[in-house]
């Protein structure tokens, strides 16, 4: 607090210069100013609305909602920061002082009836005036500093009147003193305020799984807020196991604690009622423990410099200022050029584009038919031409909509940093986290689904791959481990690498584990690579088994499954003693994918093109056998084959006929899918199937093709995994 206050003082004394500096800064760069205004007007509008709500609540007989005050406070704070960035000192100073009023209000240093609150309105109007001038590019006239100064001195005066203090309610509360000490000044104020209003106090203790506590805690908080106010959320020590974290929510509520408890139907959650001691109650005397906050309240006014105050006070009731506020805000409204859009609206738009893509294919088919008939060939040719033009525009529309959905990778990086910070604290391991490619863009939906797998991978690296400082020093490495996360674009894909410089995976241990679990036989000779890939099999978690650290055993099989669901591949390279690199390859967007259409008998299927490595024709005599399975010699390597017709029990071409092989790649695994026909590539929109069909292995969803209704989309990851498993079982 002390640092804050002194900053306030210096800002204040330079107030006059600040205002004139703003004038100088406002003229040369009107583009910057425009940028500032377009962002700031949104904040200002919100403040304006919030303030009118504040007034409503003030004049009603309900308590002013603390959240509302906090929100205005944050708006003022944001505005201050923004103005500071653009070098607009007058605006920055003004919002800074408004922030002071709001801060005093939220900490209970001034009451909501204080005249200072009325000054907030004038402040917003003044800000609006300053901003409109900026936007018009008018060099601010001499009035500016004077207006601001007048206003600031009025604030000083209003805020100075000390507020009557009431007794201390915290005394005699049946609450742990360490908990009381952990409360911030604001939280303490809220606690008093709630006690004064005779609300019940309860402590909600809840235990969460470490990996999911953010969601759990926010769910609980939402539920609690329905019936009361959360005064404070504190992590509590308790005897929770390592993988869990406990929180205590100090809650003030109007309803009986028993009813609150019955309403909060959450696992591992207890509600304790906090009783008031005899000393409590509104009429209690002022005990010593109160001195701190009272002292602060008294100090605030005296801490303000007063030189400027009264001198300009007579100009204080500048009524034109207030009356001009409304039209100024009106004119600001029309300036903005950016909009925020709900992702669902973009989804709808994307769906429409997807349907247009399908319609386009239907038109292409009609044009084709017309062209083939000699009587309509001319119309057909014309239609084909028109269709081509439509196709071009449609592609532009598609990429335009896709472009809007793209968000930078930075968002994920920020989440990962938080995870690592927490791990650092919990495990006491010094690990450096480095990022590359924060500006790489990815579909918003993919970004959301990517967070969990990436957190798993980074956690694994932190927990298990990186050695202790002693171990690292002995191995001749720097004592601090390093995890580097990089994202970059490669063609139509985004590649994400998580590289650690830890001990690397213990190939022998994985092998033993796999034999023990019956995934491979003891006689089998597997390459280094093949052994590493076993990590992705269900039931074999390196986390718990390979490293000495007792882990939480996050299964890499889950990571692979999640990524496969997004049409992604995951691969792993590990060098003993040097570290491990996990590489994820994802399509840039899920919305529209390229699919290869294949035919088997009378049926057609779509295969996502990003899992297709190549296609080729194969004659019956080229197909050989190895370990009882059909294989193809592909440039010296045996390629495991799978007849899709047999797999799906569809009547397909005979075994003595020429077939097509579609080489699928999932991570490091390869599989040749035998089909009757290749029917070309299509842009498609995958729809997942709901209901019983969802569970069918090997089918990821369906898509609509222009002329032939629904076509099922093959789930490459399960088809490949099943075929590989069958070979291993054989």
């Amino acid at each position, binding site marked *: 607090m002390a640092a804050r206050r002194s900053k306030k003082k210096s800002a204040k004394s330079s107030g006059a210069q600040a205002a004139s500096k703003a004038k100088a800064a406002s003229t040369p760069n009107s583009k910057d100013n425009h940028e500032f205004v377009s962002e700031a007007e949104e904040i200002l509008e919100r403040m304006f609305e919030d303030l009118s709500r504040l007034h409503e609540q003030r004049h009603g007989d309900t308590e002013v909602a603390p959240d509302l005050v906090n929100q205005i406070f944050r708006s003022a704070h944001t505005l201050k920061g923004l103005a500071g960035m653009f070098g607009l000192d007058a605006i920055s100073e003004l919002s800074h002082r408004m922030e002071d009023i709001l801060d005093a209000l939220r900490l209970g240093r001034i009451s909501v009836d204080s005249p200072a609150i009325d000054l907030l309105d004038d402040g917003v109007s003044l800000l609006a005036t300053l901003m409109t001038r900026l936007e018009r590019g008018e060099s601010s006239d001499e009035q500016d500093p004077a207006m601001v100064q007048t206003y600031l001195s009025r604030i000083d005066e209003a805020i100075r009147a000390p507020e009557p203090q009431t007794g201390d309610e915290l005394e005699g509360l049946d609450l742990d003193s360490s908990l009381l000490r952990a409360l911030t000044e604001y939280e303490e104020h809220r606690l008093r305020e709630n006690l004064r209003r005779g609300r019940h106090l309860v402590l909600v203790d809840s235990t969460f799984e470490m990996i999911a506590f953010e969601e759990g805690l926010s769910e609980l908080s939402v539920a609690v807020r329905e019936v009361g106010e959360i005064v404070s959320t504190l992590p509590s020590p308790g005897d929770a196991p390592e993988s869990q974290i406990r929180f205590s929510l100090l809650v003030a509520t109007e309803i009986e604690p028993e009813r609150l408890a019955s309403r909060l139907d959450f696992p591992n959650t207890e509600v304790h009622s906090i009783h008031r001691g005899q000393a409590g109650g509104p009429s209690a005397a002022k005990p010593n423990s109160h001195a701190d906050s009272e002292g602060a309240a008294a100090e605030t006014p005296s801490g303000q410099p007063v030189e400027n105050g009264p001198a300009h006070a007579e100009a204080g009731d500048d009524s034109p200022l207030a009356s001009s506020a409304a039209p100024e805000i009106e004119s600001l409204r029309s300036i903005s050029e950016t909009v925020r859009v709900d992702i669902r609206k973009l989804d709808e738009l994307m769906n429409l584009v997807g349907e247009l893509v399908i319609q386009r294919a239907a038109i292409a088919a009609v044009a084709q038919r017309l062209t083939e008939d000699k009587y309509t060939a001319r119309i057909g040719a014309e239609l084909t031409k028109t269709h081509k033009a439509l196709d071009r525009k449609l592609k532009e529309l598609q990429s335009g909509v896709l472009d809007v959905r793209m968000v930078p990778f930075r968002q994920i990086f920020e989440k990962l940093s938080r995870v690592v910070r927490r791990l650092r604290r919990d495990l006491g391991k010094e690990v450096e986290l480095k990022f590359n490619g924060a500006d790489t863009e990815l579909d918003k939906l993919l970004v959301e689904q990517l967070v969990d797998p990436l957190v798993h991978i980074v956690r694994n690296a932190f927990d298990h791959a990186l050695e202790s400082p002693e171990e690292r020093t002995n191995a001749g490495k720097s004592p601090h481990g390093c995890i580097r996360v990089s994202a970059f674009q490669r063609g139509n894909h985004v590649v994400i690498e998580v590289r650690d410089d830890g001990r690397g995976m213990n190939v022998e241990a994985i092998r033993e584990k796999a034999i023990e679990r019956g995934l491979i036989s003891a006689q089998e000779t597997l390459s280094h690579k093949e052994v590493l890939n076993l990590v992705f099999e269900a039931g074999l978690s390196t986390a718990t088994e390979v490293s000495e650290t007792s882990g939480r055993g996050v299964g890499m099989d889950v990571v692979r499954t999640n990524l496969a669901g997004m049409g992604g591949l995951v691969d792993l390279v590990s060098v003993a003693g040097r570290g491990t690199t996990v590489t994820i390859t994802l399509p840039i967007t899920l919305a529209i994918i390229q699919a290869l259409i294949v035919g088997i008998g009378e049926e057609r299927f779509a295969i996502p093109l990003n899992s297709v490595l190549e296609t080729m024709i194969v004659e019956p005599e080229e197909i050989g056998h190895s370990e009882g399975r059909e294989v193809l010699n592909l440039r010296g390597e045996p390629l495991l084959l799978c007849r899709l017709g047999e797999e799906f*029990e569809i009547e397909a071409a005979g075994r003595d006929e020429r077939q097509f092989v579609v080489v699928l790649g999932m991570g490091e695994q390869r599989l040749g899918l035998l089909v009757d026909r290749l029917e070309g590539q299509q842009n498609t929109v995958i729809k997942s199937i709901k209901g019983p069909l969802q569970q069918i292995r090997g089918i990821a969803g369906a898509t609509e093709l222009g002329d032939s*209704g629904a076509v099922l989309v093959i789930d490459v990851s399960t088809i490949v995994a099943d075929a590989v498993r069958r070979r291993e079982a054989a």
Partner: protein
Amino acid sequence: MSESRPTDSATGLARSNWESLARGAVGHFGSAGSDQESAELLRELLVFGLDGSAYAVSVERVREIVRMKKLTRVPRAPAWLLGVVALRGEVVEVVDLRQRLGLGASTPNRLNRIIVLHGDVDRVTGLLVDSVSEVYRISEDEIRPSQGTDASCVGEICPRGEEFVSILDVERTLGVSDD
């Protein structure tokens, strides 16, 4: 619980649920001024033909009725799931009602109709039927439970002229309760 949604209706429904259901139906179609005057509780049913008999589903469950479309068979699916059809960019699974009712497998032809039903949450399912007759309004008093066993897809029956209409229990028909 009197606010219970009509879609929650399973078999042993309480009377109050039927009332809200009937009210919902009347309100939904907004054309029942005369019915509101009489205190009679009415239910609206979509009646359709299958294998020469009349069946019905509650109109609230019906999203739309479409002509037979190109059906895509789904490998590894249970036999009573005929396959999927594409409906304006949406993929809808189609249940072979004939087989579901134990009347043998259908051979779909162009004259068939698909009744598209709202399932639970956002699931949408089509029922393959022979023909669609009408929306039939009937008093609750005339509807009685079917004599069939629990596994039967028919939950209730009601008279319609000379014949009887079997009213389907949608949840059981769509296979929500078993498998």
